[in-house]
């Protein structure tokens, strides 16, 4: 057995002993990626464009949640019990609301004027990048360039164990919020009139308008829905990692990877892609140093684009399933 064999054997042992702890962390990260990724995939569905300013929607949600907690918790002791639950729900709602507002403004200012003029796709890309730079630099100017750590609305502790690995309160919160959001979104898109309108526009916008679907309104709604999930994800992310004006860049790029991995335009694909990316990234910590983890994520992006550009679930546009 050569040196590589020893390397592998040693790491496989670590993988075995650390598997569940890494898995739990990966699922939590993956849910956050998925929450951001649905914003990319919904907007891609109706507009065929990647909203590269989505990272700033996430950042706005993070800051909104931070200010909520700074106001209610401040430097005092972390609350417990029902007030913790209430603060987390409030943070998710405010983060989601601010995300939705920023998304709406983006659509109005950066995209709708281009749509009116039938601008080429490249113009949308430039507009998105411009809007993104504007927004994060605005945040940098207003809030400074240093990271804030978020006042904790709860005491983090292991809630239960799964195969011996502790599951922290933070992860439980992400699981609950993520699952509720995914379940409601999935239901809205597949069962409601609103969702049917979004799917119709994604599949054939002109024909959808013949059926009486207001395309402008539908596009605005997809931005609102994507913005809500993205903003809420920003709050959950900021809860643990703090907030800073550049916080959106890397998580959003990874969420974009997740959306491509699952099949851009496919809602369930974005959720599944997020989970797979999160888990894969987390487990790869056994084999590479944490500093290289972004290399793993973007390696996946490049591989997917080369091997299966349509992603895991393919491009089944507008389809909930």
């Amino acid at each position, binding site marked *: 057995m050569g040196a590589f064999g020893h390397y592998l054997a040693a790491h496989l042992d670590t993988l075995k002993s650390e598997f569940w702890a890494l898995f739990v962390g990966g699922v939590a990260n993956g849910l956050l990626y998925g929450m951001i990724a649905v914003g990319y995939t919904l907007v891609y569905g109706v507009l065929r464009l990647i909203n590269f300013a989505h990272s700033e929607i996430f950042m706005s949600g993070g800051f909104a949640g931070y200010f909520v907690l700074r106001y209610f918790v401040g430097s005092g002791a972390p609350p417990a019990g029902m007030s913790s639950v209430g603060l987390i729900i409030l943070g998710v709602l405010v983060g989601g609301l601010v995300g939705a507002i920023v998304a709406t403004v983006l659509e109005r200012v950066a995209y709708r004027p281009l749509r009116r003029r039938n601008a080429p796709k490249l113009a949308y890309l430039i507009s998105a990048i411009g809007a993104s730079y504007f927004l994060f630099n605005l945040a940098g100017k207003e809030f400074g360039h240093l990271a804030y750590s978020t006042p904790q609305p709860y005491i983090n502790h292991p809630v239960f164990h799964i195969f011996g690995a502790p599951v922290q309160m933070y992860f439980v919160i992400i699981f609950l919020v993520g699952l509720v959001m995914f379940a409601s979104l999935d239901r809205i898109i597949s069962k409601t*009139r609103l969702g*049917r*309108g979004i*799917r*119709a526009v994604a*599949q*054939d916008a*002109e*024909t*959808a*308008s*013949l*059926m*009486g*679907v*207001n*395309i402008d309104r539908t596009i605005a709604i997809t931005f609102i829905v994507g913005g809500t999930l993205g903003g809420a994800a920003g709050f959950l992310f900021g809860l643990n990692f703090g907030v800073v004006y550049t916080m959106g860049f890397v998580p959003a790029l990874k969420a974009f990877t997740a959306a491509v991995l699952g099949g851009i335009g496919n809602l369930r694909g974005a959720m599944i892609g997020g989970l797979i990316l999160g888990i894969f990234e987390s487990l790869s910590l056994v084999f590479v140093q944490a500093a290289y983890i972004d290399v793993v994520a973007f390696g996946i992006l490049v591989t997917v684009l080369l091997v299966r550009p349509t992603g895991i679930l393919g491009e*089944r*546009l*507008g*389809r909930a399933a």
Partner: protein
Amino acid sequence: MLDVKDAVVRYGTITALHGISFNVQQGEIVTLLGANGAGKSTTLRMLSGLHAPASGQILFEGKDVTKTKAHEFAELGICHVPEGRRIFPQMTVQENLEMGAFTRKGSTSEDLDKMYATFPILKDRRKQIGANLSGGEQQMLAIGRALMGRPRLLLLDEPSMGLAPMIVATIFGIIGEIRDSGTTVLLVEQNAAHALHLADRGYVMENGRIAFGDLAKNLLNDERVRAVYLGESVEG
């Protein structure tokens, strides 16, 4: 019921319709004939708000709809079966039908039953996605979808395109039934013989203009129509 006056439609610098005027009366089937590029589809698209007229006027049931937006026409009572059927490919047959009733409030189950009675094949396929239907099934679905909006005026664009003769006969039979049940029909059709046998009146379009119009039975005997659109040699 429908009155088009001097309507002009431009695509950029190209003028597609040079001021057309025609009308459709309640309870009629009116057909627009003409070669490819004559402006027939553009006319229908204008009547659904997909191309706003640069000038002219469109009156529907006495109401000015010249500036009405595409998504507002279904509610007004004008439904459009577009060229190429344009079924939502990833929706099931039933979801496609329900899209036709998108602007309507209340239950659609009665209308669904009616559509399934008119098009039994769609009932068998109601859980299949649109992309998996044959051309004829897609055309029936496209018509059924438009009827779900309970239109008073139905716009049909090339319903026979690419279909086998037997299916074309079925579709034309259904168009006749639609008229008999009280829905007015404006039909664009390449198959002039079929269209004129079914229609009450017809207009012939050439190069973005209405060249002439008459009762369908007169057009069937019109030498110009027979030579150009019915593919017959003009008898001496």
